């Protein structure tokens, strides 16, 4: 642990020095960008170190299997992240809920942007991050359910198109809707207040 802790602390310390210096010099966007990137590096590594990747993969696959069963698609979990589904032709198909499918990257990026965006007060940031993470988690399960549903009904041939295009597009649109609803909408209302006060 000390082997990882000391370099991590040194990295955080150095990042902080650079960021603080730039902040004092009022390089706001550079600060925002660097803080976000440093946090992303630290976040990605720490999440991996503490086994969050595997945990998220397991949670997402378990919940997807649960909802798929409720929707009438026979499914089970193998080795925590392999989702086995049965198609209408009784064929068994294994879907690997990998790191990308776990939506952990989207969650990390969203948390960092909301966390460091100077638009909100801290309590609103916490509430938005909590809501946003829950939302991303739900739409990710929906994304996988779209793939699972299509594969269960039409067989493994549709897997590529569903995974690569349809489900991804759905997820992309939903994530953008979240950013719009939280970030852009609040920005417009914030500037409205400012202009009116002027």
């Amino acid at each position, binding site marked *: 642990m000390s*082997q*990882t802790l*000391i*370099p*991590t602390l*040194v*990295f955080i*310390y*150095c*990042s902080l*020095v*650079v960021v603080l*210096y730039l902040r004092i*010099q009022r*390089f*706001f*966007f*550079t600060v*925002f*960008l660097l803080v*976000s*990137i440093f946090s*992303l*590096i630290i976040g*990605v*590594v720490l999440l*991996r*170190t503490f086994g969050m*990747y595997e945990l998220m993969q397991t949670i997402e696959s378990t919940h997807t299997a649960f909802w798929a069963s409720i929707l009438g698609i026979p499914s089970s979990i193998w080795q925590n992240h392999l989702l086995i589904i049965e198609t209408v032709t009784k064929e068994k198909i294994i879907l690997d809920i990998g*790191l*990308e499918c776990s939506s952990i990257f989207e969650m990390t*990026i969203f948390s*960092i*942007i909301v966390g460091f*965006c*100077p*638009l909100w007060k801290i309590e609103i940031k916490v509430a938005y991050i909590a809501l946003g993470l829950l939302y991303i988690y739900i739409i990710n399960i929906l994304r996988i359910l779209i793939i699972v549903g299509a594969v269960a009904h039409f067989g493994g041939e549709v897997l*590529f198109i569903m*995974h*690569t*295009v349809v489900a*991804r*597009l759905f997820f992309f649109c939903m*994530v*953008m809707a979240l*950013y*719009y609803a939280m*970030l*852009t909408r609040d*920005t*417009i*209302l*914030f*500037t*409205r*207040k*400012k*202009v*009116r006060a*002027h």
Partner: protein
Amino acid sequence: MNEIVLFIVIWLPWVVLIVLIDYFKTSIKVLAVLIHFYKNKVRKPKNKRFLLPFISIVIPAHNEEKGIQRCLNTLIKQKYPQESYEIIIVDDGSRDKTATRVTRWKALHNKKMTVHLETYVVNQGKAHALTLGIEKAKGKYIICLDADVVLAKDALLNSVLYFENNPEIDAATGNIEIAWNHDHELIASIKTKAIPRFLAIGQFFEYTNAYALGRYFQSLNNSIFTLSGAFSMMRKEVFEQVTYPNDTLAEDMDITWQLHMLGKKIGYIHNALVYVDPIISLDELYSQRVRWRQGQLQVSGKYCKEIVKKCPIRGRRLLSFRLFTDHTAGFARLLWIPMILLFIQVDLYSFVTVVYAVLLMYVSYILLEGLRVIGMYAISQSSTKVVIREYFWMLITVPFYRFIAYFFRLSGYLRVYIDGKSAWERTGPIIRFVERGHILKKAMAFGIPLVIISTFAFEHFVIGKY
């Protein structure tokens, strides 16, 4: 082989998304513009017989000694009869020789045409200057012009013909293009320097796309986002209902949105070419982009409720669509770029796969620029075509230029949250780094080796890769 399969499976969505969103949007735009352009070319509307009306040109000028004379000289060379237009210059508290230059020019040319010089002793802002000029104007149409632009010889005539032939149009914007052959001194100096040339060509393609395709397309569905501050034209009576505001940084966008809310029809005059000088320093470009974005947010905030209420479809298109692509997608994309590099770190993909993916993305954007250029080229005038042909090869640098502009754009948005004040001019990041050079050198001497060493230590101990 496995890498290639992975590459296709994982990166195809990116390409597909670009194809679906950017390529689809651009293709529709190019097709619609080309169809409209050629249809109108074949069935050229007959100009009605009419006497050319008297028009007013309002030029607000603040510290414009360098460009004002050049602008006035192009006005005197117009194909429009000189007795049929007046020029109203509003000197907005200039500290340089703007007023002297105008007075001297006026003394030389006043016999031929009507030239008025109004003066504010203290700088009041562009909106005030425009309002004063408009109050003095007597013409049937009023053209608001920036003091540093150059007009093509037939710009005034074409603008008036456009309005006379389209009585339903209340306001219109001209076709703004980056000057390339119209200021030899500046352009000659740019041509030999890499960064200024890169910026100028980036802006050339950006402006030509924004007007020849963008404004043209927007005019087809009456959703012009901004009447250009450099050249916009309105019927005199329109100014009884709208005013240039002084509470936002984007007075041109503000007045455009006021017109939309009144249900006015806004057009685009493709053959009224107006040339503006390119910005050749990163700091000036930064200042301009920050101002634009702050203005965009201010106007969006100011009218967000009213515009959706008064014109629901058009209002939503103006408010949500533009902010979605500029602001929402801008912030969402911000961390995906470094995230792609982190994919290597978390052993998701190999270095080669990521490099290929990034290259593919870049190539996709070059091709997208190519698609835009095809559209622009087809409808542009011969002078523009010459520049496009000459600098077509520089299209490979345009996505990089847009990448820089993208960072400046986000910086502008961020400043809205942080800064209490809205300033017309901003000190750019490069000049600030240079100004603080002595402190930076010290900081770099200690900071950079420290960051590099700690990053490697972090990599070695925490990730265990090296």
